[in-house]
């Protein structure tokens, strides 16, 4: 039989039994759609997290007090039980590092803010003028913290958008005096609303000079030092220099942890990439199930059409012709199923993106290709057995079943 005739014959056979054709196409398309949608979700989560993490700054190196990394056993840690804290002077010393473009010490705590009788709890971040540009924050009104001596706690504050709305309503906020804890601070700027980010909600944040924050919380330690490397390539060098300087200042002990944004990003990327793969694996099971369903449908088709197969044999069809016809039908069912499933999946991903605009739910190309090819291969593979069974039927027996 010619290829075109085989295909036409298979198509007519498939459309001749609409119920079972629809069911197997549906099963296959659900499988493929599951792969497309689930990987879109997984990859969307990865992109979302990576995007959020990238938005906290560029080329960041973050210094944490304490040795929490997995750098192996350090004898110094065994002797000194409490690591040295990070101080403003430590942060100041890091400015010597050649690979560092700018840096911001960070002290955090919670306090109460009040204005005009309204009172609420807020998170207070003590830092310097460079904190806002390093973190990629933008000002809606006014200006940032003054660029003066880090040890001088000028009584000023930059407030988040939500705080501004709640404390001031429609009144202008810049220039007003607010009370934070037991201090009176002048509002010099308002942050642009960014919504919920990783770590802290900047809309409900008050940024004050670092020395002032330390005084308010009665401590001289820092929560973090944010260091920005001069370029992406300079990140490892910056990390090394930061480590070296702090080691010198801490009497040779490596009692701080330095992490790079790149490393964290890579970890998230890997982690969520693995998650996507796992989800794709689960979805692939549904593809296998769909393949088995196609096999069952084809086996039923062979049984239903036993008489026809006998007839074809009587009319001179070779075993190969019959095998090909049934295989073509199985391939057709899974191809149509795969295409319909792909479209359904893309539609679902589109729906997700419409419902959650911040969530980049795009199925990755590899998943689409893998999903489609798995569907086709399982369809064909599971089509082989019924096709062979059909080809092997005894024509006399088959004809009697008509």
């Amino acid at each position: 039989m010619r290829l075109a005739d085989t295909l036409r014959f298979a198509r007519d056979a498939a459309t001749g039994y609409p119920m079972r054709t629809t069911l197997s196409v549906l099963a296959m398309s659900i499988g493929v759609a599951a792969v497309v949608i689930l990987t879109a979700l997984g990859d969307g989560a990865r992109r979302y997290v990576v995007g959020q993490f990238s938005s906290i700054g560029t080329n960041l190196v973050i210094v944490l007090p304490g040795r929490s990394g997995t750098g192996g056993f350090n004898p110094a840690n065994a002797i000194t039980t409490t690591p040295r804290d990070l101080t403003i002077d430590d942060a100041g010393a890091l400015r010597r590092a050649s690979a560092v473009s700018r840096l911001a010490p960070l002290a955090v705590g919670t306090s109460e803010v009040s204005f005009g009788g309204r009172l609420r709890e807020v998170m207070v971040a003590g830092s310097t003028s460079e904190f806002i540009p390093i973190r990629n924050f933008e000002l809606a009104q006014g200006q940032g913290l003054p660029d003066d001596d880090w040890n001088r706690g000028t009584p000023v504050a930059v407030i988040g958008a939500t705080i501004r709305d709640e404390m001031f309503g429609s009144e202008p906020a810049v220039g007003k005096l607010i009370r934070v804890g037991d201090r009176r601070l002048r509002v010099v700027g308002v942050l642009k609303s960014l919504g919920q980010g990783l770590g802290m909600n900047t809309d409900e944040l008050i940024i004050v000079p670092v020395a002032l924050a330390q005084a308010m919380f009665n401590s001289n330690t820092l929560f973090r030092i944010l260091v920005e490397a001069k370029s992406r390539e300079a990140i490892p060098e910056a990390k090394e220099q930061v480590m070296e300087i702090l080691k010198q200042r801490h009497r040779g002990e490596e009692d701080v942890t330095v992490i790079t944004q790149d490393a964290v990003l890579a970890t998230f990327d890997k982690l969520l990439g693995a998650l996507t793969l796992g989800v794709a694996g689960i979805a692939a099971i549904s593809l296998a199930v769909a393949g088995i369903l196609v096999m069952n449908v084809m086996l039923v088709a062979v049984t239903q059409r036993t008489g026809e197969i006998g007839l074809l044999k009587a009319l001179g069809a070779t075993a190969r012709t019959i095998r090909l016809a049934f295989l073509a039908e199985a391939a057709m069912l899974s191809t149509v199923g795969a295409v319909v499933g792909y479209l359904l999946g893309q539609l679902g991903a589109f729906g997700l993106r419409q419902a959650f605009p911040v969530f980049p739910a795009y199925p990755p190309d590899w998943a689409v290709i893998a999903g489609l090819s798995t569907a086709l291969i399982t369809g064909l593979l599971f089509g082989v057995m019924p096709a062979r069974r059909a080809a092997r039927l005894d024509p006399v027996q088959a004809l009697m079943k008509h």
Partner: protein
Amino acid sequence: MALIELTNIERVFQLGDSTVHALAALNLSINAGEYVAVMGPSGSGKSTLLNLLGLLDRPNSGTYRLEGRDVTTLSPDEQARVRSERIGFVFQSFHLVPRLTAAENIALPMTLAGIPAKERNARVAKALAGFGLENRADHRPDQLSGGQRQRVAIARATIMQPALILADEPTGNLDRHTGEEVVNLLEALNASGVTLVVVTHDQAMGARARRQLVMEDGRLKSDSHVSPPFQGEG
């Protein structure tokens, strides 16, 4: 030379514990252009003989020569080719593919043989005209009457211009009048030179053949050449 030559054919079926000799020590020779009716009670081996002649079944022993060639030793694919080119089947229950139109059913043997669509269409158009089915080309079997269905089946059986037509109770599912038409068609084919072997229960129909084989218990009971008594029936 005989078209069909069966020598010492044995066909044995295993039914549970018992062995059934569907065909036993059968010797038969049919010349090209003959019109043979095979008769006999149920289980006498008529259908087995027909299946064997049609290469749908293999004998347990003995040889079957078709056009001088031993076809019992051919591979299944070679046998399929012989069926495709030399043998046409007509069945009691028509055996049309329900989802295909009359034209497509007639074209089916050519489609299976890989004949190009253009030639198929030309030959199908001719066959439709020849069997008075021009207006039924696009009808599916369920839209056709019994007689029309059998005409489609006969058109299909002859479309590859076979040397031999095997008909198994071709009128069994038809009323007397349409049965008569179908028999006339088959006889016209025979008159044009095609060898016709008909299995039938119908004595009247069997009597029309020029040669009658009566079977019993897998053996030939009688083999008589008679000239058909023309009766004004129908």
